[in-house]
């Protein structure tokens, strides 16, 4: 194996292992060691992002492998904000688990660092646009996990537990949605500067709009008691659209996006 790839895979495995260990510790109620291990995993993750940036000689956001690593890094700070803002420290166990998942996926992705930023990507919008989307997708993933666990626990333990998880899910998505909005609309402003068109109905753009609108529908359903029973289905569809935007559009040739081909 090519030496940089070996180093990268070792760092990936170490960070993923620490995140998973943190998840197990927090699951068993060992908060001190759990959060300590979470922080250690995050530190290794940060080193990995630094190594990727050094190898790419620029922002490490040029391919799916880079994006997965940055995505994993987002969860730690987001949990800290969520815990402080909405008193949801008990959700740390879920943030630890979802931190590991992108890194496990990244182990099997090409580490090719021969990517060069073409002139259209050399814009001040590049990092804010991609970073905002990473933050929002990270939080949306956590929210979806909370919703699923809430449903499962609600069946076993009662409605109160499900309600607690639903509230956590809503608060997490309220944190995510402004980033998602900024990510989408900053892309429109950037596209106008680069190509003279805010919106080209490119598959990536269309699916990101579908995702955004489904979350808008979710929030409206949460706000109206008569529509509240549709909130969970709306969120499931929104998350499915998010996965389509994030993965399928890149990986399925027929959905391949011409304008976002470098993503």
């Amino acid at each position, binding site marked *: 194996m*090519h030496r940089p790839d070996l180093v990268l895979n070792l760092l990936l495995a170490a960070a993923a292992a620490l995140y998973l260990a943190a998840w197990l510790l927090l699951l068993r109620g060992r908060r001190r060691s759990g959060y300590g291990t979470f922080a250690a995993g995050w530190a290794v993750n940060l080193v990995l992002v630094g190594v990727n940036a050094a190898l790419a000689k620029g922002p490490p956001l040029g391919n799916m492998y880079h994006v997965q690593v940055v995505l994993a890094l987002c969860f730690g700070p987001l949990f800290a904000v969520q815990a402080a803002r909405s008193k949801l420290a008990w959700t740390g166990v879920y943030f630890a688990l979802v931190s590991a998942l992108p890194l496990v996926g990244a182990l099997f992705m090409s580490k090719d660092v021969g990517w060069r930023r073409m002139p259209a990507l050399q814009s001040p919008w590049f990092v804010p646009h991609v970073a905002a989307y990473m933050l929002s997708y990270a939080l949306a993933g956590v929210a979806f996990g909370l919703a699923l666990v809430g449903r499962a626990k609600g069946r076993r333990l009662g409605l109160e537990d499900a309600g607690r998880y639903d509230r956590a899910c809503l608060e997490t998505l309220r944190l995510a949605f402004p980033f998602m909005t900024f990510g989408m609309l900053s892309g429109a402003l950037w596209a106008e500067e680069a190509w003279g068109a805010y919106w080209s109905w490119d598959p990536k753009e269309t699916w990101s709009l579908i995702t955004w609108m489904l979350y808008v529908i979710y929030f409206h359903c949460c706000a109206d008691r008569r529509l509240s029973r549709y909130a969970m289905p709306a969120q499931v569809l929104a998350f499915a659209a998010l996965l389509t935007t994030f993965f399928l559009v890149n990986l399925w040739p027929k959905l391949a996006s011409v304008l976002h081909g470098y993503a």
Partner: protein
Amino acid sequence: MRLAVAILVALVAFLLVGAIPVEDGAQIVVFHTPAFIALAAALALSLVRCAFGRRWRWRRAGFPAVHLGVVAILAGALAGHLAGKRGDMVLPLTDKHVTDRIERPGGPPAALGFGVSAIQFDVAWYDPVYGLYEPAPDGGRHRLTRSVPVGPDGSLDLGPLGRVAGADLRDKATGAWAPQYRLAGGAVLALLPRTPRYYAATLRFTAGGGKSELRPLAVNHPAVFRGWRFYLVDFDKEERRYIVVTARRDPGRPAVIAGIWLVIAGTALLCFLGRGGGDAQA
């Protein structure tokens, strides 16, 4: 609230249809149908009704900001669609060739009312990158296994396969990089299409009376002249004889940009400062 949700659901259905992949792309034609435009208009009316439907205090300014921001975006987009002009120009890199019209897809050329020429062009390239194509284990076609950039010393580091010196890859007389290089063991290095690191031009605009003005033009930095915006989108990579420019005149642009920032700010206010779903009660 239920009407708004119904409109949003219908719009999502349209978007899903438009996202279906077909032979020559997605079915984006659905986004230009009267039904879709009517639905967008219904959404705009619903948003206005929601925004002005009740009195809002300043600390809840996020709600009307988001709703009116979307209306501004839709209104600006409609104005641009109805009254805007957009087209492409191929400008030879010489000040002797002056163009005064743009080519529009599916329509007649549109006059600019002034002349445009490209008088200067600069391009810088990234170092070359070679693709390493290795024979398939089953003896099938070679597969691209890795991209290998040329190093600072001009050589290629192929890891376990060793190193290829720059002198072996370049033509001694011209210095040009070899399009292909065969390695021992059957692997092949193939020069990948070069990526420009930067390119920019200078446009000369000539109006009546012989007066001319110069404007710099680069990717992500459009040139502006008399309400028209010019975007550098491509250039002749083989012989550098011309550049490709998109020209656009969009009366709805200020409304769209204002709407975008209203939605961004309003969403942040609504979600970061608001209190759960109660802020959006019908």
